[in-house]
């Protein structure tokens, strides 16, 4: 099976993060009737992408701005790859120290959620100034 690839670039503004979530929800339509993903999993992927995009706006760009925020989704037979790229500041450390979030806290759940939802997460800062967070969800048999 050939991989399906979806891609969307929006301005790095919190109000535009919803458009990236919608791209995740469009997976089922783009993948065709042979690939029906369980609705609960799609909701969780959308949540993880939303958390990652919000982190990029807040921490890489330091708030709403006109910088690019790009989500690319590659749908393969055994896995989905979500790549979120920005051109803001580099993450200071990676992998980050897992925050000890004592509920009820009002924030700092983002990375915990991304790691809970995705099977593999890694970050890359390229020489051209692009940050890319790659999140992989396995969808093959036994996933």
């Amino acid at each position, binding site marked *: 099976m050939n991989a399906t690839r979806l891609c969307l670039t929006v301005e790095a503004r*919190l*109000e535009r*993060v*919803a458009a990236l*979530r919608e791209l995740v929800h469009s997976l089922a339509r783009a993948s065709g009737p042979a690939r029906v993903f369980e*609705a*609960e999993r799609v*909701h*969780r992927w*959308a*949540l993880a992408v*939303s*958390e990652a995009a*919000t982190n990029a*706006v*807040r921490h890489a760009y330091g708030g709403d701005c006109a910088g690019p925020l790009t989500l690319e989704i590659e749908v393969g037979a055994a896995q989905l790859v979500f790549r979120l790229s920005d051109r803001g500041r580099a993450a200071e450390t990676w992998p980050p120290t897992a925050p000890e*979030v004592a*509920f*009820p*806290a*009002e*924030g700092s*759940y*983002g990375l*915990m*959620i991304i790691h*809970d*939802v995705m099977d593999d997460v890694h970050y890359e800062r390229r020489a051209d100034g692009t940050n890319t967070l790659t999140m992989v969800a396995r969808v093959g048999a036994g996933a």
Partner: protein
Amino acid sequence: MRIQTVKPSDGPAVLQLEGDLDAASSPQLKAGLLALLDAADRGVVVDLAGVPFIDSSGLGALVAGLKSARQREIGFALAGIQVAAQAIFTITMADHVFEIFPTAEAASAFLAGARKA
């Protein structure tokens, strides 16, 4: 996000939300919630039946409301969480911390009963 407040004379105030609850909309909810808690001595129910998506920023606004209600010793409950919005509660285990009911009516009845007890 649209926010509407219903204040019955004999029961908890109900905050009805419509739209995604995310980093863009959560400041609006937090401000509305804290203002309502200042004046709601019979408790507050947040009706999430019209909310298809909640992220950690949205959860943070609800946590701020919960903390404020506890400080004021006011009842606080969530109602009508959609299946699509449940993940954030299970991943963070917030579903063990909030009082959660299937409908706003059930949440209001619980808070009214707790107040009498």
